[in-house]
């Protein structure tokens, strides 16, 4: 199969590769770029384990072709911590509130929560549950994930208030 050049920005870094047009974004990230934090749980866009952020929207990268990300900005779990290694509040709160067990759904959950909190910085519990309904977890029973996201939302709001006041 002939290959096409694709260029995109992944976690702030520009990457360029020659790929088959049928290559899925998730395989591009995992196998071409070695970003194995994005997981695969179904390949049919049901489980959300492969969730990444594509130009400001949560997408299931198992259902996006790498070539569809041409010229776009992608963020994966590897791009969540600060360059100096400081964890993102969401990452910290997931740990603090035991929002993960096996860790398979976690990268997708965190990426989804990150976008959700930008769409709605002060969500209710119901809104969080609805907002992550595209991401399945088999281990946690969701409750502690929801707690982690609500706690992160509160922290992010508090930080913003401090910033605004300064």
């Amino acid at each position, binding site marked *: 199969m002939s290959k096409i050049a694709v260029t995109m920005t992944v976690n702030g870094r520009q990457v360029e590769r020659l790929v088959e047009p049928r290559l899925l974004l998730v395989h591009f990230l*995992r196998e071409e770029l070695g970003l194995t934090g994005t997981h695969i749980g*179904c390949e049919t866009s049901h489980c959300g384990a492969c969730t990444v952020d594509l130009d400001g929207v949560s997408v299931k990268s198992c259902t996006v072709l790498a070539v569809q990300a041409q010229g776009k900005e992608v963020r994966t*779990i590897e791009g969540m911590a600060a360059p100096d290694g400081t964890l993102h509040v969401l990452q910290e709160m997931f740990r603090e509130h035991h929002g993960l*067990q096996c860790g*398979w759904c976690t990268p997708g959950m965190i990426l989804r929560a990150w976008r959700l909190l930008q769409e709605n910085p002060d969500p209710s519990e119901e809104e969080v*549950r609805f907002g992550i*309904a595209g991401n399945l977890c088999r281990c946690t*029973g969701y409750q502690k994930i929801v707690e982690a996201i609500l706690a992160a939302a509160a922290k992010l709001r508090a930080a913003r208030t401090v910033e605004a006041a300064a």
Partner: protein
Amino acid sequence: MSETTELTREARAARLEGLGCRRKRVEDIRFVQGKGQYVDDVKLPGMLFGDFVRSPYGHARIKKIDTSRAKAMPGVVAVLTAEDLKPLDLAWIPTLAGDVQMVLADGKVLYQNQEVAFVVAEDRYLAADAVEAVEVEYEALPVLVDPFKAMTDEAPVLREDIADKKEGAHGPRKHPNHIFTWEIGDAAATREALARSEVVVEELITYPRVHPCPLETCGCVASFDKVKGELTLWGTFQAPHVIRTVASILSKLPEHKIRVIAPDIGGGFGNKVGAYPGYICAVVASIVTGRPVKWIEDRIENLSTTAFARDYHMKARIGATREGKITALQVEVIADHGAFDACADPSKWPAGFFNIVTGSYDIPTAHVTVDGVYTNKAPGGVAYRCSFRVTEAAYCIERIVDILAREVGMDPADLRLANFIRKEQFPYRSALGWEYDSGDYHTAMHKALEAVNYRALREEQKKRQEAFRRGETRTLMGIGVASFTEIVGAGPSRNCDILGIAMFDSCEIRVHPTGAAIARMGTKSQGQGHETTYAQIIASEIGIPADMITVEEGDTSTAPYGLGTYGSRSTPVAGAAIATAARKIRAKAQMIAAHLLEVHEDDLEWDVDGFRVKGAPDRFKSMKEIAWVAYHAPPKGLEPGLEAVSYYDPPNMTYPFGTYVCVLDIDVDTGVYTVRRFFAVDDCGTRINPMIIEGQIHGGLAEAFGIAMGQEIRYDEIGNVHNASFMDYFLPTAVETPRWETDFTVTPSPHHPIGAKGVGESPNVGGVPAFSNAVNDAFAFLGARHIPMPHDHARIWLAAEKLGLHG
């Protein structure tokens, strides 16, 4: 004075983050950054990908397999069929249950999606292309899906390979499709007791076929080094050492030439215990091609081929006095094992520990028979978040007890309270042979009932029922109570083994000169947080802060032999091995401390993180100081170093228990339900990390919710599997999943070194009957006796329809 003695005792203990601490998980630091190392993350130079050609038929003869077109495709390196495996003696392999199973279809296929050929190519896309190019000619055969028809005269013979075998691994076979009969208890006494009982109720209780369905599917990478003659096998293995032994037996490679590595695992729940055709084919392909070969299941393959669970059809008959005192229990089970008996039970237990079916009740006499049969369905029958058929048993007894309560006109909670084994009866020998180590069922139940204000709920329900009868509401209220008793921690070597290997578990601890330590284990976490909790046990035992202890699992070349993680056995068995290994270290440390403090060992007492001279509080040596001396200047006559190994053979199982209450409202016109409350009181003995326990309970309850309210792997009459994708198989999202409320009691196990019992499976065992009882309870006053699972909206609506509620 050392720093240690300046801090208060409490501060020193807190610093250890030992038993009882809500310690944050060590694993999370890598997982929240996407830095876990799972099997699909393994990437080796020259690695190939394997993919299966699978049968579209449920039962068919294979007339011809033509691989020539596939083999000619660019990037395709090999295509294996049963013919290629035969010279290696690998077309069939023994199962853990004493049966044999095909690796690749040999002459016929016995279930849909069965493995027919294995394609090996340069990448996964090319492998998938080549799968399409393999041409297989089938001749369809009559299909058997109904387990009740398996032993009839008209039933097609599925297993031609053993059609004439009159004797199976577990005794005589009555029919070519029969696998075993397992019988326990006193048949005559039970029959007699039932005949004498004032009340007898009988019901067929079916626990449908479901699937553990971890979010990560199964997979492996096999890498055979021709020069060294060594095989390295990475994989999603809940029991890596068992896989190594099996790999050695099958491949005939000596066991020391095989290294099995289970990296991080994305959930297991029993799915990842067995040895699957994918593993065998990847190993063979690596040996044949001389290159590493990766095989990763997709979701459809996972749901339709590796490891289903349950599929138990239980006819229960329970006798009682008119006052509701249980007199006898009899259960006859038809167990659908699919095409091969590939259950992963301890060898002597073809129906697992199903004889825990007398549950939490003092039942004087009981009798059980289980008949395993073959059908044209995927093999498995694994212990899905379950200790070998205890989930089936708990569902059976908890449903039949509810039905009995209705029959004698008692409240289901009261009937339970009247029949519970009483606290003072422990250790209690059940009619079916188990010795329950400890329990306090009444306290757990009272706690749960009070928490939800049970009596008031019943009042409210009564009013609702009256209003319903008057036509003022269309919403019914259901209250489900379940009081389960688990049996976990397999198990004592006198009755538990896998492939002849006793079901002990192991731990090796090495304390380093600076007072840090590493512990290596025979178990394997799949999300349970062993790296965190195991370190807590060691911290409390030998006074080294948990943060200074690395816990390592999963690499057979470094870890001591262990039987792995399933059946909630990690804490009961490996947890005990940790404590005993740690105590050996402490005993040696005591000798060193005595030498340093120039006293007799008996004059020392353990104090949080070191030894103190009795009556002389300032004469103290911390573990850290002792560790240094162990390597620097050990006392004369004592070997240097500070390490210990323990292989722990548990004297008994442990018996966690609890009471769950579920309250839900059902709209009879739509079948839509809302879970109002779910309250769980668990007793898992000593609590190692309450945060992790809560997580385990929440997760298990969510899985129970999925099972009770919507899951079923369903086959149609021609053997098509209907729910093998996330489109069709119900996995609850955060929206449907109820909020969980939890509480606990603590009844330590008397025979476990730290009194712990294991917890991961309790919520699945107790959760399913609590939900199912709630749905049944809602309709019971209208005459419904037993509404079978799963209780999805459509089926609840149908139940209402059957009761004539839709006018």
